């Protein structure tokens, strides 16, 4: 019975009982059934061998061998005949191997579980931070996961607090009906619905619902994409406002053209001078209409990001001198003193020469238009090393701009009321300038003004273009 005791003590630390069984078979060939049975019976529990393995200690191995030999001798078997040493070593080696394998599996499982937890965590964070309104429902149509935007747009708390059934109400009924309808359509199902302003979130929304299915194709939830339509509505409103303003601006010259043409047809212009005046009005208004259309198209192309910018090295000082020369006749006509002051430094920028020239022409012709006869206009260009920009300014002794209108002058079709008497532009010039400077050249445009004293419009353009382009 000694062998059985030893075998039990051997097996106490073991988890892999099969190994003991194998040794038991080897032992049984020489030592007889009793010992084999004893070892086999002990196989399910096991411990002392584990200690030997753990220590890797040859002394312990020797002790174990001695006790096995003793046990065999007691049972009348010769340990040398049955090769107990080899069997024990094989057993120990196999156990060591299995133990390593088990540890590797456990480590693998631990890693897998950590990875799975971190993946799940990442997924939750990804959904939570997604810049879209995402809401995930489980098979019972209860909220299990939301993005911050999704929770806000459905009017439910963000994070864990929002989990569970959707708050009762008419809006929830509408959403859940769409969820059920989409699910009824199968894996390819989809429902889209619009929720009006008001409700818990107080914004107009569009919700797209898609059912989720597990690997076996059974429905097990839904995903909702909740879009905030207020930005779209605002864009629509702005477009409609722009179209209304644009059509008014287009209609004004068109009114003159049709009215004067009709006067000519009806013979209402009775002498050459009157007829000539009609023709001149038609010609002038037609060209204004053309400019208006050009400016509108240019602005909309820049806004849509469709404008090709031919970037070269442009000397803003040189460009200013030339443009001042070309505007000089208009200034002479109004007996204005127009002067260019260009600093003797490097005034080159990376930019589109034609576009920058349009900006300068616009600023200079505005100054001429809105400065009374005999006024003074100074156009200056200098470099600002602090900001790495070239600064260009047009300063006049015109009527000035009221402080509350300073920002508005860059808006489309904005006109200062008493300015309209002096000249009639397209109402788009400064808006186009802002687009060219800010959207296409990463620069800045601004105005300083004192009512009754004059205005100073300035632009600053970086000497080096940073690459890429700001959103128009």
């Amino acid at each position, binding site marked *: 019975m000694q062998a059985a005791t030893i075998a039990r003590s051997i097996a106490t630390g073991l988890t892999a009982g099969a190994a003991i069984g194998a040794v038991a078979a080897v032992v049984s060939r020489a030592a007889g059934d009793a010992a084999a049975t004893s070892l086999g019976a002990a196989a399910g529990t096991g411990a002392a061998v584990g200690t030997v393995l753990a220590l890797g200690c040859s002394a312990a191995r020797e002790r174990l061998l001695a006790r096995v030999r003793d046990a065999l001798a007691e049972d009348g078997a010769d340990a040398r005949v049955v090769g107990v040493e080899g069997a024990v070593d094989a057993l120990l080696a196999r156990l060591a191997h299995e133990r390593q394998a088990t540890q590797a599996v456990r480590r693998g499982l631990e890693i897998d579980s950590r990875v799975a937890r971190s993946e799940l965590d990442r997924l939750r964070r990804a959904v939570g931070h997604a810049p879209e309104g995402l809401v995930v429902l489980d098979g019972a149509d209860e909220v299990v996961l939301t993005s911050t935007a999704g929770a806000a747009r459905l009017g439910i708390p963000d994070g864990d607090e929002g989990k569970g059934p959707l708050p009762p109400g008419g809006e929830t009924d509408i959403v859940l009906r769409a969820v059920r309808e989409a699910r009824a359509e199968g894996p390819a199902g989809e429902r889209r619905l619009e929720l009006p302003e008001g409700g818990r979130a107080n914004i107009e929304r569009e919700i797209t619902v898609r059912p989720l299915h597990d690997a076996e194709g059974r429905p097990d939830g839904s995903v909702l994409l909740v879009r905030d339509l207020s930005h779209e509505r605002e864009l629509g409103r702005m477009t409609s406002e722009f179209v*209304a303003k644009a059509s008014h601006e287009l*209609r004004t010259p068109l*009114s003159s053209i049709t*009215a004067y043409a009709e*006067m000519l047809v009806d013979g209402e212009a*009775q002498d050459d001078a009157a007829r000539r005046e009609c023709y001149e009005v038609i010609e002038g208004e037609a060209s204004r209409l053309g400019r208006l259309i050009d400016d509108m198209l240019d602005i909309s192309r820049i806004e849509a990001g469709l404008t090709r910018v031919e970037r070269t090295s442009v000397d803003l000082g040189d460009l200013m001198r030339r443009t001042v020369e070309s505007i000089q006749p208009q200034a002479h006509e109004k007996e204005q003193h127009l002067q260019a002051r260009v600093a003797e430094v490097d005034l080159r920028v990376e930019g589109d020469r034609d576009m920058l020239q349009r900006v300068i022409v616009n600023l200079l012709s505005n100054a001429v238009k809105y400065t009374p006869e005999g006024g003074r206009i100074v156009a200056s260009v200098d470099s600002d090393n602090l900001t790495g920009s070239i600064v260009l300014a047009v300063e006049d002794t015109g009527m000035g701009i009221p402080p509350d209108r300073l920002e508005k002058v860059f808006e489309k079709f904005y006109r200062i009321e*008493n300015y*309209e008497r002096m000249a009639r532009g397209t109402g788009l010039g400064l808006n186009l300038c802002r687009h060219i400077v800010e959207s296409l050249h990463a620069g800045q445009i601004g105005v300083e003004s004192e009512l009754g004293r004059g205005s100073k419009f300035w632009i600053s353009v970086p000497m080096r273009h940073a690459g890429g382009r700001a959103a128009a």
Partner: protein
Amino acid sequence: MPGRILVVDDESHIRQVLTLKLRNAEFEVEAAEDGEDALARIAGWKPDLVITDLQMPYLDGAALIERLAVDPATADIPVLLLTARGYGLDTSRLAETGLRDMVAKPFSPRQVLDKVREILSGDAARGEAA
């Protein structure tokens, strides 16, 4: 039939073309640049009819019509309004005023003259009947 007409528009070309058309038709015509300017002229020169643009700086056409309606001295002056589609004019606020008719821009001077004659002859007929 011909009488005094005040043309109110911030666009000088429109003022000129209507002035010429109406003067050729024997009307006496004055012109104003906006609502404020129109009220100032009417104070010293009462017209038989006002033709006004809708969109103008300072005092627009609708406000001018309302101002004319509240003053007993000018409440009886008929008004022809030059409008523009898309401006979103709420004509209900002009129900109790001198607004008689509207012509959309771009307009035909011929059509404006026809409307002017129509309004003035209607008023003349009512005047005779009264």
